[in-house]
């Protein structure tokens, strides 16, 4: 088992090394190598998962990684009830996406490079998931950051792509700073960063409701905000859509962005101690869910719509982990990985056959040309809208139901409104892309629009099936919900004093109604054309403009952060500090002093290396004499 667990990580790494080093020669079968590496990794990963299912947590320490005096950091891997879910999701969805990429990237000139990056990404993600301490998690955390930078900027000839890669990197750095601070606090308080060492002692060391727990919680959450693209730091994610679409599917739907949720669920022992930190997590989650959904309504680019919906769904997950019902967050993470991965893959298939066109204004009636893609897209949209029996219904309902029961009615209301909007924008997209008439005459004929090849459709179908049945683990069976029971071994739900009881059927009914009414609204507007979208847009002109411009977030950053920096830099740093103090005072001044001194010292600079040695030797003599006569005698 020890070796198997290690090879779960090593196989993608080996794939990366093969494709990375010998890419020139392995180009024809780079995709096969990468996909089979992931397949092996997935199959090997099943062993520890099975062991966890039997109730044995798998944890091995391989070697001591950094021995400091008191703090010893091991290199160890751990699969427990939380990471087992992540391990399954990451390896399986990544595997599907690797297979899909074989078709999508065919003919690209960076074929081998692409697959080596993809494997590197999965390696880093697995280290993040499986590491048994925070520092190892941080290695994975930075590793996925690096790999995502490489993948987003994969088509680096396009300046937008490389800019987007840099933006993702820079914004993530802010979050990483928070993460590091959290880990350092942890070292300070616990003298260790190993999970099995920190969590059992958390309550004893920190105490319930203590400031220390809150600080650690918030600092770690700042890291999660950066990586999971929550409210202030979300701006990188939409730009990151410049990368190849399977990359968006892998990084921005299924794996990397969920790292923050995973980390919060993983640190449940600390969050449970701090109601304040929990409140912040849940609030930011709810706000992001709503905020991103409003932006998704107005956008016309399929990938951007999906990107905003990802933000929104991540908000849901943070509500789940923020209210203390960690299993709901992880549950939604899992179902989301299935259906959002699928949505991105379907968008990729559309993009593939539309030669890169993405605007929903150009499409319509695509159902006839791409029946399979249309079917899986509708399945995924139903899942994300929360229509039973699709996966999204169970997880979203679990989050919202728990939010209400834990005493967060406002979050519940916001969540329900967001659910309505989710259904609306998803079906707005579906209806305008797949139904209705061809909007631009002869476009499809010209582009030879066709169904995607089997290597792309099969992974989509697999994910589609999972999008349907993936949520069924959330059905109450024999008195308890299987996934709740499973996760609660490692991350027990925070206990609340006053548990309100609401009728479950009623809550479900409200959720379903919200979803259905969203779909209905979209149907009325985009199919029946009772009222055209333009008219509504004109009716609420100011709001529409605000939303279409994404709340002017980039402009806000530019005005309020970049501009003042610019101003301070030009007016103060440049003109005063640089020119007067540094240039005139320090540079010229030191130069002047150095010049004066140099004139004196020039006598010593004979240019003969021997002469320099004299002075050095004389210096040694002086030093030793000083030691001799002052210290000893």
């Amino acid at each position: 088992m020890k070796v198997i667990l290690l090879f779960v990580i090593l196989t993608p790494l080996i794939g990366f090394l093969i494709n990375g080093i010998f890419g020139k020669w392995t180009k024809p079968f780079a995709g096969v190598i990468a996909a089979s590496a992931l397949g092996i990794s997935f199959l090997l990963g099943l062993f520890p998962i099975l062991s966890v299912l039997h109730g044995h947590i798998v944890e091995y320490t391989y070697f001591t990684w950094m021995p400091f005096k008191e703090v010893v950091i091991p290199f160890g891997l751990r699969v427990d009830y939380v990471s087992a879910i992540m391990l399954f999701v990451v390896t399986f969805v990544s595997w599907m996406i690797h297979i899909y990429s074989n078709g999508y990237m065919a003919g690209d000139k960076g074929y081998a490079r692409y697959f080596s990056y993809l494997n590197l990404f999965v390696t880093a993600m697995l280290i993040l998931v499986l590491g048994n301490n925070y520092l190892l998690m941080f290695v994975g955390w930075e590793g996925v950051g690096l790999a995502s930078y490489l993948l987003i900027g994969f088509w680096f000839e396009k300046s937008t792509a490389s800019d987007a890669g840099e933006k993702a990197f820079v914004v993530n750095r802010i979050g990483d700073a928070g993460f590091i601070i959290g880990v350092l606090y942890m070292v300070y308080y616990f003298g260790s960063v190993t999970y099995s060492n920190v969590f059992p002692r958390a309550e004893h060391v920190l105490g319930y409701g203590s400031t220390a727990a809150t600080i650690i919680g918030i600092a770690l959450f700042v890291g999660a905000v950066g990586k999971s693209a929550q409210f202030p730091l979300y701006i990188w994610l939409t730009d990151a859509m410049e990368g190849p679409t399977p990359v968006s599917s892998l990084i921005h739907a299924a794996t990397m962005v969920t790292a923050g949720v995973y980390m919060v669920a993983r640190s449940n022992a600390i969050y449970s101690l701090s109601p304040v930190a929990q409140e912040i997590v849940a609030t930011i989650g709810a706000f992001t869910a709503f905020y991103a959904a409003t932006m998704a309504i107005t956008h016309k680019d399929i990938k951007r719509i999906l990107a905003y919906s990802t933000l929104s769904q991540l908000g849901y997950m943070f509500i789940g982990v923020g209210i203390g019902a960690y299993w709901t967050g992880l549950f939604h993470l899992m179902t989301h990985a299935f259906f959002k991965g699928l949505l991105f893959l379907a968008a990729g298939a559309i993009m593939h056959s539309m030669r890169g066109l993405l605007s929903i204004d150009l499409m319509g009636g695509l159902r006839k040309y791409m029946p399979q893609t249309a079917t899986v897209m509708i399945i995924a949209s139903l899942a994300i809208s929360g229509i039973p029996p699709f996966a999204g219904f169970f997880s979203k309902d679990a989050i919202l139901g728990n939010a209400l029961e834990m005493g967060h009615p406002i979050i519940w209301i916001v969540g329900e409104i967001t659910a309505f909007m989710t259904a609306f924008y998803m079906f707005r997209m579906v209806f305008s892309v797949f139904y209705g008439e061809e909007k631009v005459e002869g476009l499809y004929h010209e582009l030879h629009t066709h169904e995607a090849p089997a290597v792309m459709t099969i992974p989509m179908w697999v994910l589609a099936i999972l999008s349907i049945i993936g949520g069924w683990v959330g059905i109450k069976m024999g008195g308890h919900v299987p996934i709740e029971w499973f996760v609660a071994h490692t991350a027990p739900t925070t206990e609340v004093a006053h548990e309100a009881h609401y009728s479950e059927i009623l809550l479900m009914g409200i959720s379903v109604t919200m979803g259905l009414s969203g779909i209905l609204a979209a149907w009325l507007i985009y199919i029946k054309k009772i009222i055209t979208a333009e008219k509504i847009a004109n009716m609420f002109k100011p709001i529409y403009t605000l939303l279409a411009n994404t709340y002017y977030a980039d402009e806000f950053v530019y005005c309020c952060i970049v501009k003042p920096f610019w101003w301070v830099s030009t007016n103060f740093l440049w003109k005063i500090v640089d020119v007067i103090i540094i240039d005139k005072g320090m540079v010229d001044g030191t130069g002047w002093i150095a010049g004066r001194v140099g004139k004196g010292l020039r006598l010593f600079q004979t240019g003969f290396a021997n002469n320099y040695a004299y002075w050095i030797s004389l210096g040694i003599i002086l030093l030793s004499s000083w030691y001799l006569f002052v210290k000893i005698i």
Partner: protein
Amino acid sequence: MEVLIAIIKLIIVVTVLSVYVMYATWYERKVIGHMQQRIGPKRVGWHGLLQPIADTLKSFWKEDVIPDKADKPLFWLAPALAATFPFAAAIAIPFAPPLHLAGGKVFYFSVFHSKIDILYILGMMGLASFGVLIAGVASGGSKYSFTGSQREAAQVVSYEAVLALALLNPILMAHSLNLEKIVEAQRHLWFVFYQPFAFVAFVIAMIAATARVPFDLPEAEPELVAGHMTEFSGLKMGLFFFGQYVMIFVVSALASIVFLGGWTGPVLPGLVWYWIKILAFIFMYTWFWGTFPRYRYDQLMDIAWKALLPLMVLNILWTGFALAVGLPVL
């Protein structure tokens, strides 16, 4: 007492090695002769068995020519060093498996025995090239000698590194620098099965380090006459030969100990296994001599720096990692 035993051992080793060198030349001439469909030495004694003795005697009576422009002290020093250092390396090589005496004492069949045998042998092997280097310098501006020495210096620096890196893998696996411990660690399976790449690299590097075909550039006959030995004659030249053959013996023994399990092996007694392995390596040398063309100089350097060295570094990384996490090495 111990000093006395050591001295006796030393004398025996000198004798054995001298006889070994004499008959190694005979053996090589015989084997190479048969490979080239000749008979080899035949006249002196039965199947030419007395030939090496005749050769040795002849080299004693040869006129000792010293070039006018030669640097006399260095000219004397060069062959002495060329013979001394390989010999110094050879005294750490056991000639037979250690004998476990009554009372827990162990009798070693090597003159010098320590915990860091391999380091000692590597050090002495590195120094062995000095004889050749000085030979080039001392020959008083002879172009052939000088070029030969230059090549030897570059070759030794390159291949010494490969040799050490290749040895590091078995050392890591055996957790010891001591030859007996390394043999002990291979009781179940020889290291050549764990470390095939290291073994191949070691064999290539050991041929280059002893400057034999196909890497015999320091004394490439067609271009350099006899390389560094051009100006030497008689006994001095004999000493160079002595050094080279002892060196071949040392690396062969090292290879068989470190990679092929030394005196471990089924059925036959340890001593027999040990010498079979060493003689197999010596035969391999002759075999290569008879079959391989010489490499070009830049190819020689490319092999060392662009192929073997990176490969060995990767190999060590893998070995260390595998040992650290408890994986099977291969």
